[in-house]
């Protein structure tokens, strides 16, 4: 028997907070197969003094450190702030305490240490890490700021974070308000170790089918690198201004932006124009996908003249996309979830994601415990599909992904 004391609100150690996750990993035998988390986060703001040094423009670099304090948000002009209540007014205590979590020594970057801790506790073999406040960067009215921060972040993470651990990967942020700068970023960073794709944050007002983006899509297709659309919310969105609670903005906002971009992507025939380009829709859960499939199919049958590039129904293109799983809607009706899995070809297209450390994170058990999946399919969703998509070596066999599946 052991007796442990807990002082709520005093300090944070990921290894203690996620102790139950570690037991789940052990109970379910995660060590026997590869788990890939295709969407986890760090807080780049906590390393902003380092990132700011990579800003290329001396004027913007000076602005980043104005007053002797390097800040990314708050009074800074570099990243738009976002009204929100992610920490549930302090109920999710890791938000206010995460800056207090101590790293061990200075040989390994603190971010790497914290990421490793979470991975280890959850039983994850690879993680694809994304920034957090930068999810709002697409709303910056000064395009040159988005480009400056995106490039500085790309240089910093590829030089100071990713080389430290081959199990930590990223899909680099594209400064999508500047198509030429986005293309340049792809060309410059696509071959950097740890870069497994590129990512567009969805809170923005640039239609993805605009002709100025075609060279970017071609460049990604040619390199075999996936393009991810990472959702977020914005309370400044005019329609969302009517919502008076964060739950409402969050529940609608994340699928809302992915629905906008996916609709443009499909109706304008981008899958026909770039058939080998792999597209991943990140962090909108799953419930919106059957909804949109039905809406678009129904209207397409009547209005195909408005979508002349399409060779098949919108839902068929949508079945070819990849989707990250979190936050997977667990509302009690397992039949709905089962049907959703069938509609999106989850066995081949669904990618487990945690979104840790954000407030609505999902553990691998969210997938592993589903009663309608057999062991083989669970392993595909938890890691096999991602290994194939991102070209990751199977962490358990150290061979090509899928090599050990026959043993399941």
């Amino acid at each position: 028997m052991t007796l442990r004391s807990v002082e709520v609100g005093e300090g944070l150690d990921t290894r203690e907070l996620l102790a139950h996750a570690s037991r789940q990993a052990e109970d379910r035998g995660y060590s026997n197969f590869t788990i890939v988390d295709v969407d986890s986060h760090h807080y780049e703001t906590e390393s902003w003094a380092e990132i700011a040094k990579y800003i290329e423009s001396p004027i913007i670099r000076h602005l980043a450190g104005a007053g002797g304090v390097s800040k990314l948000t708050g009074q800074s002009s570099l990243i738009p702030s976002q009204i929100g209540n992610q920490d549930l007014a302090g109920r999710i205590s890791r938000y206010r305490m995460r800056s207090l979590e101590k790293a061990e020594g200075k040989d390994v970057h603190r971010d790497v240490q914290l990421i490793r801790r979470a991975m280890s506790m959850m039983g994850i073999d690879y993680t694809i890490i994304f920034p957090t406040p930068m999810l709002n960067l697409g709303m910056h009215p000064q395009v040159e700021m988005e480009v400056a921060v995106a490039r500085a972040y790309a240089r910093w993470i590829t030089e100071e974070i990713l080389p430290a651990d081959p199990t930590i990967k990223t899909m680099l942020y594209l400064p999508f308000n500047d198509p030429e700068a986005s293309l340049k970023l792809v060309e410059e960073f696509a071959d950097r170790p740890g870069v497994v794709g590129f990512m567009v944050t969805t809170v923005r007002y640039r239609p993805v089918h605009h002709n100025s983006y075609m060279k970017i899509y071609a460049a990604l297709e040619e390199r075999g690198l996936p393009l991810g659309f990472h959702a977020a919310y914005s309370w400044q969105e005019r329609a969302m201004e009517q919502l008076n609670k964060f739950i409402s903005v969050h529940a609608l906002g994340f699928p809302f932006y992915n629905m906008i971009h996916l609709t443009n992507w499909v109706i304008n025939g981008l899958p026909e124009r770039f058939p080998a380009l792999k597209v991943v829709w990140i962090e909108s859960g799953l419930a919106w996908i059957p909804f949109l499939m039905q809406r678009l199919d129904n209207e397409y049958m009547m209005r195909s003249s408005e979508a002349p590039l399409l060779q098949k129904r919108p839902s068929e293109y949508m079945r070819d996309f990849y989707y990250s799983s979190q936050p997977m809607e667990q509302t009690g009706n397992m039949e709905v979830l089962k049907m959703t899995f069938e509609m999106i070809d989850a066995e081949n297209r669904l990618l487990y994601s945690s979104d840790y450390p954000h407030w609505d994170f999902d553990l691998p058990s969210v997938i592993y415990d589903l009663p309608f999946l057999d062991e083989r399919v669970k392993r595909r969703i938890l890691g096999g599909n991602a290994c194939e998509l991102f070209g990751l070596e199977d962490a358990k066999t150290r061979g090509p992904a899928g090599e050990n599946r026959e043993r399941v």
Partner: protein
Amino acid sequence: MKVSEGETGREAVELFAGKAHEYGEGSRKVVRDGETEIGVFRVDETFYAYDNYCLHQGGPVCEGVIIGKVEAVLDEDGGVIEERFSYSENHIVCPWHGWEYNVVTGECATDRRMRLKRYEVVLRGGEVYVLC
């Protein structure tokens, strides 16, 4: 560890959960015995002990904040006058995702058909024991 008769009449194991005076505001004890993990805490003068696994994803529910249930106050027309913390109902909140449970009953705040497993707490000589 001692053995006594629990509520069910079967033999219950008594697990030592610290001294009563160690339970201040924000203080919790977590007793682990094999696969069983029980969170113990005090609200006002009453001790509570629950299974320390949230019914959602298994988070350490007893290690979260304790806070009043949020209520909305309506006027006679159905308009909202204000929101306030309950005078009578406290919740314990799972630190992983925010699921809330009634401190006294262990019932899930959003669905009272779901509840945390509760354990009896015995105070003896300034020491706290959990029966399981």
